[in-house]
């Protein structure tokens, strides 16, 4: 038993450990205001304080910390993308992920499982080979495997998928991992707060003051704040914020749903993804299968969930794992995703001076949390786009210069 625990047990006082300092009053001004206390916003605050010495930072959150897509994703971390920009960016993210638990002194349950992207058609096999070659070129561990390798890693799978969509092979990505997503927000939040960053929950931004093309302040439900720099990290609410300053973006918003099964004994070691069956699934440390599918078929900006989703996803799960017919679905939920036309994010400076976007995270944002925080912090601190994110700038659409990442989306959304 650790000495600390014994001392705690023998002590007369049992103070509840606090992750964060008690909430304070809003100040009248900050050097930087970050909208959104999810993983991305808190990570940016953390790196601003740790790497750039900028601690006069407020993180404003309409709801509660980590309550948006940070706590709603299916926690998959990988870097086997398709474009050079994407591979380099997500590879840097995976490297940061691997040391986060130690850095935070907080167990993120980071668990490297290996990640199979199943191919059911010849054209899917071709895309897998393409991705494997791009990945290997940039030093990312990625290879094409045959169906027998999938069966060895996961003996429970029906390789014929009920006869509908036989598995021909897969892209295997050994560093593929999962992590406990809430703890990521807590770790970054605590690290930022320890360095002087203020986190204000239940504080909604109602307007942004722009004078002469420059950000001058932020209006909130708790008063007005003077600031010259605003970082917007609000995922599916991005269009609401960009509308406040009249900034046009290609972002469109659809819900993305997910569900978990009842807990089972550990049986599924790798992470499995099937584009044809619209499935991604892994088994969490609690034994629940965490399952996701493709986007909802039409635009909605609320987190309502539907029976259609559970029916469709369950049917496809049974194609792959017929023995699961008696397993119950325990919970389902939705997040609202900010999709982009090329399936790459929109990051960096904008035409409004002092307004920085960390958006367009659609269905692929969780895995990028550390590197987004790091690159956005550098972008905000120096007012220059970090070299890793220049391919993701908003003005690429004005130049018809897309960063086509759709082939690496986990399922054909």
């Amino acid at each position, binding site marked *: 038993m650790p000495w600390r625990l014994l001392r705690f047990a023998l002590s007369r006082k049992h103070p509840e450990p606090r992750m964060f300092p008690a909430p304070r009053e809003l100040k009248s001004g900050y050097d930087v205001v970050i909208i959104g206390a999810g993983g991305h916003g808190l990570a940016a605050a953390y790196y601003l304080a740790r790497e750039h010495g900028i601690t006069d930072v407020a993180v404003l959150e309409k709801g509660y910390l980590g309550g948006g897509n940070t706590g709603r994703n299916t926690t998959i971390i990988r870097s086997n993308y398709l474009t050079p920009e994407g591979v380099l960016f997500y590879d840097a993210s995976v490297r940061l992920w691997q040391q986060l638990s130690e850095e935070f002194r907080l167990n993120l349950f980071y668990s490297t499982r290996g990640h199979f992207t199943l191919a059911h058609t010849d054209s899917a096999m071709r895309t897998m080979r393409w991705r494997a070659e791009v990945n290997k070129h940039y030093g990312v561990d990625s290879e094409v495997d045959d169906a027998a390798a999938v069966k060895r890693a996961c003996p429970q799978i029906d390789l014929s998928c009920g006869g509908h969509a036989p598995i021909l092979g897969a892209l295997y990505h050994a560093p593929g991992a999962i992590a406990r997503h809430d703890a990521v927000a807590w770790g970054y939040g605590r690290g930022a707060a320890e360095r002087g960053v203020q986190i204000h929950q239940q504080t909604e931004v109602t307007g942004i003051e722009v004078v002469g093309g420059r950000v001058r302040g932020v209006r909130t439900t708790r008063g007005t704040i003077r600031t010259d720099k605003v970082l917007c990290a609000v995922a599916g609410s991005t269009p*609401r914020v960009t*509308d406040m300053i009249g900034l046009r973006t290609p*972002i*469109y918003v659809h819900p993305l749903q997910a569900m978990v099964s009842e807990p089972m004994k550990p049986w599924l070691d790798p992470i499995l993804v099937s584009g044809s069956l619209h499935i991604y699934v892994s088994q969490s440390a609690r034994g629940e299968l965490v399952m996701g599918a493709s986007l909802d078929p039409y*635009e*909605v*900006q*609320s987190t309502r969930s539907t029976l*259609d989703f559970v029916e469709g996803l369950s049917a496809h799960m049974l194609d792959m794992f017929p023995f699961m017919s008696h397993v119950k679905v325990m919970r389902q939920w939705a997040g609202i995703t900010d999709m982009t036309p090329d399936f790459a994010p929109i990051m960096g400076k904008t035409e409004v001076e002092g307004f920085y976007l960390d958006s367009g995270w659609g269905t692929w944002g969780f895995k990028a949390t550390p590197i987004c925080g790091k690159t956005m912090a550098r972008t905000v601190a120096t007012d220059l786009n970090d070299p890793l994110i220049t391919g993701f700038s908003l003005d690429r*659409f004005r130049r018809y210069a897309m960063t086509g990442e759709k082939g690496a989306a986990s399922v054909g959304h």
Partner: protein
Amino acid sequence: MKILTCPVNGPRVVTEFAYWGELREMPDPAAVSDEQWADYVFNRNGAPGIKKEWWCHTPSNTWFIVERDTGRDEVLRTYLYGEAP
């Protein structure tokens, strides 16, 4: 939303329909600048609100307009293009 009313076939389950995005007016490609054309091609109105949208009843290939509050997912009315009540 579980049921959507097709102007031709009446109320049907929503899985019979396909969503085709917001109704937008195309500018004259010969008259606009490259930048204005890019704005039409890529930029969207992603904030919640009451929007006019293209939907299709796929079994009968009926294309029509839905006026819907996208924040609450509530349909206000549906009608054939050009036949707004």
